[in-house]
Every structure is written in C-alpha cells, then in structure tokens.
C-alpha cells in the first residue's frame, strides 16, 4: 500500500445527522431528506443545486443512485451508490473526498442511510449471492463471529476470563454513559455494570449489552476543496488521511492467525498514520470514533490502532484510559453501542461527532481543545474483513 493521500486538500464544511433509533414512522426517504436538510441549513448561501455530485452509502435501503435522487428530486446529478459492508458510510465519504481532490468537482456530498427496522428480524441480515451453502457466515451471526475473539484473547494473553468479562462490560458501560449525553443517540441512558454483565446471552459470552443496537438513521457531509472551505464556514474540518483495506481472507484459513487482531485494521491504521504524518497515535490523537459493533471488537481495536500495547488493552480499558476524561477518549458520542448501526450512516455519524467536537458543539461531551480525530469502521468478521481509517483535524499541517 503506497497511497499518497490527500492531506489538507479537502474539507468538510457542513454536516447533518438524524437522531438514530427505531423510526417506525420515518422511511429511508424521510431520513435522507432530514439529514441533507440539516446539513444544508448550516450553509445558508448554498442549496442542493450547488452540490455537483453525490455519493450515497447504503447496504440494503436501496441499490442505486435513484435511492437518493428520487426523494431529493435531484436535477439530473451524478449519484453513486456505494456499499462495503459495515464500512459503507465511510466508503461514501472516502470516494466523495477523492472526487473533490481529483479536481473533477468543487462541492460534493457524502450521504449514508440505513432503514433496518423494517425487516422484522433481530440484528443485521445478509444478502449474499447464490452459493453452495458451505460458508460459515450463511448461518453464524455477526455477534457470534466477533465473540470468537473472547476465548482466543484470554488464551493468547493468559487473561482471566473474569477480567476479560469486566473489560467487555466496561466498554459497554463507558459507551452507554457517553451516549446518555447525546441527544441523537438511540439509547440515551447509562446502564449499570451489573445489568450489562447479567444480560441474556446472544453468542458466546456476549450478552445483549455487548452488542450494538439495531436502528435507523442517516447522516451526511458537504465536502469542498480546502482552499474554498472558509467561503462556507469559519471552522471547517480538514481531511488528513483516508485508508481502506480489504483483506485477502488468509487469516480465516491460517492456523497462525490467533483471533486477537484484525490484520486489515493494522494495515489501514498504519497507512492512515503515514498519510497524516502521525508517529505516536496515543499522544497525537485527541479522540477516536471506532467500530464498537461488539465489546471485544473495541478492545482488540485499541491494540490494532496502536492505542494500547498487545495484551494490555483490557487493563487500559479497566483503568479508564478511553473514557471521556481518559488519556484518549474513544467513542465520546456513545458509539455503535448507543447509536445502533444503520450501516450506511454509521461512518458519517462518527465524522459528525468529530465535526461537533472540533466546533465546540458537543455539549456535555465536549473535549477540551481537540486537534486530531480518528474514525474507524470494520466490515465483515474476524479472519476476513474490510477496514477503514480516517484522520480529520481542525487545523492544516
């Protein structure tokens, strides 16, 4: 991987994000209209007709650009629908940024939406092409696939399963505590550690509170050339790095892979840090929005992203390192735990928190003087996945 990157060449100048939740009375169209409307309301001199191109991320709420162009009645604009598992929202953002950086457009929008609650099923469902019926993901659900990390991590590092349980509980407790402070979260109340640890089991040792919720939501970002950013806002957010990796699927077949890491995340983080010129992520990054689909995922991500030493993340988590007042706040907005995971919207929802934090608009969650933020998405499962890492900052350089 030798991506040159587009550091400081494009900027986010407006964002919108719906409340995430069970929107029984709102369709995907409604959510898209609301998110885009909020975004454009933040830039009074700009309207929909000024946006030259759109990237729409959705896993299952539509299959083409028409999913966006029809409800917004767009005037024959290019709309590209993208999908990349749970990194779908981030993928829309990434491609939109590259379109501006290429010089082809000056103003584009990345939009993500997912309407999950119309399916009637628990959890995410899959839409696989016809197959021979042998792939484990045909039956094994996402919480089960990620629960494979728990016994493997304990065995690899000699961690007492009770300590691991406490660390997973702490992740859920922290993210729900953060989400309780967020008016746009699906779940807006703190949850006691006792309740988390005693919740009904879903898969392995993962209980209900170890799993992200299922919700509907939409989010979007208006992206322009960095040199134009101050035409729209005095506090733009600059894109420092964008990295995406799709794994070869080797780990799922390789006895040397021990289910305590996501090689895809390690690679994408390394690439993103290089693009942004980061050498010590633990001190240089002010906040991180990571893919806490399940509590052991967040634990392993702390190590893969370089926020903790190998085998030590569980201890750092219990020490409070990633809480709002900790050394590196992780998921200050409440994460997937509090927002649920409307797939196409999640990556942009993460950027929305960065956007608020840099502008000093994060309310009770506001961190002091954030400079650099990381967002991370993971799609697939341990052994074979896609990973996205972005770095965004308030200042050039």
């Amino acid at each position: 991987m030798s991506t040159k990157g587009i550091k400081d060449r494009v900027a986010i100048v407006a964002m919108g994000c719906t409340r995430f939740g069970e929107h029984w009375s709102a369709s995907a169209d409604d959510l898209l209209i609301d998110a885009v409307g909020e975004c454009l309301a933040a830039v009074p001199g700009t309207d929909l007709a000024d946006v030259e191109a759109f990237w729409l991320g959705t896993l299952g709420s539509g299959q083409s650009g028409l999913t966006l162009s029809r409800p917004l009645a767009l005037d024959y604009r290019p709309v590209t629908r993208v999908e990349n598992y749970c990194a779908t929202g981030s993928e829309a953002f990434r491609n939109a940024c590259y379109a501006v950086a290429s010089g082809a457009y000056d103003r584009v929008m990345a939009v993500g939406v997912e309407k999950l609650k119309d399916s009637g099923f628990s959890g995410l469902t899959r839409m696989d092409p016809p197959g021979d019926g042998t792939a484990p993901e045909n039956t094994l659900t996402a919480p089960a696939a990620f629960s494979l990390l728990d016994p493997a991590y304990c065995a690899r590092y000699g961690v007492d399963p009770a300590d691991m349980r406490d660390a997973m509980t702490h992740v859920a407790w922290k993210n729900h505590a953060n989400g309780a402070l967020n008016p746009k979260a699906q779940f807006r109340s703190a949850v006691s550690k006792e309740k988390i640890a005693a919740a009904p089991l879903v898969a392995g040792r993962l209980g209900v509170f170890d799993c992200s919720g299922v919700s509907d939501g939409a989010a979007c970002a208006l992206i322009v050339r960095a040199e134009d950013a101050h035409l729209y806002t005095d506090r733009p957010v600059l894109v420092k790095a964008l990295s995406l990796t799709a794994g070869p699927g080797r780990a799922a077949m390789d006895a040397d892979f021990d289910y305590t890491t996501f090689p895809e995340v390690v690679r994408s983080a390394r690439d993103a840090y290089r693009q942004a010129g980061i050498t010590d992520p633990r001190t240089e990054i002010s906040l991180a929005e990571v893919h806490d689909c399940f509590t052991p995922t967040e634990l392993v991500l702390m190590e893969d992203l370089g926020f903790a030493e190998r085998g030590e993340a569980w201890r750092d988590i219990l020490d409070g390192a990633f809480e709002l007042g900790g050394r590196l706040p992780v998921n200050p907005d409440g994460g997937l735990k509090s927002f649920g995971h409307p797939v196409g919207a999640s990556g942009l929802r993460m950027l929305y928190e960065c956007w608020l934090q840099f502008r000093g608009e994060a309310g009770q969650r506001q961190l002091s003087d954030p400079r650099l933020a990381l967002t991370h998405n993971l799609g697939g499962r341990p052994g074979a996945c896609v990973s996205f890492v972005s770095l965004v900052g308030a200042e050039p350089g």
Partner: protein
Amino acid sequence: MTHIRRAAPKGLVAYATHLPRHRLRHADLAAALGGRGGPGGRVAASFDEDSTTLGIEAARRVAGARPEAIYFATTSPAYLDKTNAAAVHAALGQGADGPGIDGFAVDLAGSARCGAGALLAAAATGGLAVLADVRTGLPGSADERDGADGAAAFLFGDPGHAIAEIVARVSVTAEFLDRWRVPGESAARRWEERFGLESYLPLITEAGRRALKEAAVGAPDHVVLSSPNPLVIRRAAGLFPARVPAGRMPGHAGAADVGLGLADVLDRAAPGETVLVLAAVDGCDALVLRVTDRIEHGRQARPVSAQLAAGRAVPYATYLTWRGLLDREPPRRPEPELPAGPPSARSQAWKFAFTGSRCRGCGFVHLPPARVCKGCGAVDEMELHPLSGARGTVATFTADRLAYSPSPPLIDVVVDFDGGGRYTMELADAAPDEVTIGMRVETTFRRLHTTGGVHNYFWKVRPVEGER
C-alpha cells in the same frame, strides 16, 4: 409365494456401522406421556442427521476408495425423484484425482426389505450396500419408543479377500397387510400384530429351512432375525436356535436393521462360524454366511455394542422438535438461503467430500479450495487436499444463540486440521459448555438445514470418540 435361489459370486470384504450419538430415554418418554418407563432408551438421530448422512457415516468407514456400485437402502429417503445414493457417491469421492463420475449409484427405497435387497444386489455384482434409516413414530407409539436410527455398510468384492461368504440364499414373498405407510406420512400404520405373526411364521420357517439345507448347515452358530413386526422378533426367535446368543441390539432400525444385526455378529464371530440371516419383511430373505479366517483383521473399529453403549440423552421436547412433531417459535432471523444448484455442483468435491486445495509451491492449505494461493500468490498451482477423514483441534469457539438453527444454539468452532487447513464449522453432538480451546474433533457429514425443499449437506466436526 415365490422362490428365488442363487449363490452369490462375491464375498463380503468389509463392513461398518454408525449409530447416532443421541438417546431418547424411556424414562423421559414415560414422564411426558405416561406409560411404562424403564431403563434404557432409543437411539435417535440428531436434527442434522438423515438417512443419507447416516449412510455416509457408515460407508466412509468401509470404503477406502469409491466402489463400482452403491446400493442405498432406506425407508426414509431424504429425497424422492433424486438419487440419494449420488450423495453417498460424492462423499466417498475423495481421491487425489478428484470427485470423478465412475460408478453406479441407486436407491432402494420403500419398505425395510430394501435392506436385504441392497445386500443381495451388492453380493451379486460387487459394490457397497448402504443401509440407513431414521425411524419415526407418532408420540406415544411403539415405533417411537422401540425404533432406532442407524446405518450399516457392507462392501462386497473379491472372494479371495472375503471376511465372510454367502453360501446360501432363499427368498419367499407374500402379500398381506402388516405394516404400511402412504407417501407423505411420517409414521407407519400397523394391523394387529398377531395377524402379522401368523403370516410371517411359515415364511420364516420355509426360507430358513431351505437356506440351511442349501448350505448344508445343521444348526447355525449365529442367527440374525430382523422384522418390523415386534411380535415376530419375540416369537420367531425359537424357530432357529443359535449356538451363540445374539448381542443386545437397538430397536428396529428399518432398512438398516438387518445390517446392524449382521454387523453385530461379525463383530464377534469366530473363523469358520456360520450365520443365518432372516430378514422378514413382506416375505423372508434367508442368507447363510460362513465367516472366514480373515475376519480377525476385518472387523470394524468400533463394534455395534460399543456404539450402542455410548450416547448422550436428548430431552423429549427437543427430540419432538427435531422430528417436526413440535412446532416451536422460530428465531427472529431469516432462514438461511437454499444452496443453489450450479454453485453446489461446481463445489461438489468441497461440499460433499470436504476436499480443499494445497499450494504445490508453499504448502498453504485452502478451505474451501482456491485458485490463487493466499500464502505465496501462485496462480493455479494447487493440488487437491482431501480432509474428510481428518482430525483437528479447536482454535476458538462460540455458541450462537441468535442464529437460525433447527436446534439452537448453533455451536461454531474454528478448527485447525492435522496436516494443515483451517475452517470455521459447526460442532455436532455437543453442548456449549463442553467446548474448549484445544479440544480434539473429527469430521462428520451432516445436513445443516433444509430450505425451500433443498437439504444443505455439508461437513461438521464432532468431539473425537474416546477423547471426550
């Protein structure tokens, strides 16, 4: 009444049986429905086993390579209008040359008599007789309580390698109403047992007497008596006394019943001993076998008695659910997609014979097989890597309580196979609290689920016998 009389030109060269691991305890039946309890229980196929998977489990313990002919006998065919023996054929196709198409494979499906039919056909032409059944009765019935599920496989070939030879065979046939089932029904109906007994006794007497005479055997050392009429089993045993008493057997196992009985005798018989087989189903097929010196080296690895003694209890409500007799609330999850025809055909060696690929350059094993090596990037430098007989070790595991499964929770384990290869697959015949990292497992052919009328056959692993 008609007679058929012919000596078989082929010898029995190998045999094996498979009894599923679950047991429905009679005490649990009595607790749920009343009636007599008592010790013991019936052998019960798991939710992921059917006559085809049971047959394959028995067949793959016998056949080193695929035989020229496969005769598959069952009263509970997994498919009609599709040859179940073709799945057996595919599962046995694990040679280095790939799945291949050579050979004959046919189902003999209907009454339990097809068990004897498969034996006689394989004895006549050479090849493999696979006798397998899942016997279901209505709740509270004798069939439910006293039936059994299981399979037996017998390979016939070169008489010079025989562990036993058929020295006489007599068949008689009669038309009378003893046991019957209209296609589509799950349980058989029966006339009064005493009527069946009166009809069977002269048939068994006739066939047995003639067969012994043809074989010039006065009194047989062993007698195998099989009939779906339980009164026949109790009352006809005295017709032809055996020198060596019969072993304890599971209940009536349909088409597999005569095979399980014969296998139990072969587990114990000494060289030179004679066996009278009496399979009484709408007539009687009588065979006389003589065991050869080769039997000492030709017995199956795990005798019927050991397979019968092992087992784990299944709650009655769970058993009823497995058999479709208790319609439980499904999970709020979509049913798995049905396995599509063309992809399943393309991956036949993988899906049915669990054959992966191994890079000739760097040795990296790919499950499922791949064209581009994930170890070194070489393209189309693969050789087949059969793993259907492999054992492995659990690297990590989970119990999925959310997944759609005919019997939740679905247990998945990441298995590292001895000699290379890793795959994430279901663990059969075990409970979540029995799984550990480092646990030893072996492969087993199962039916993952059925969607849209298509059975999704594939391999699982189960705890290694004797290493639990």
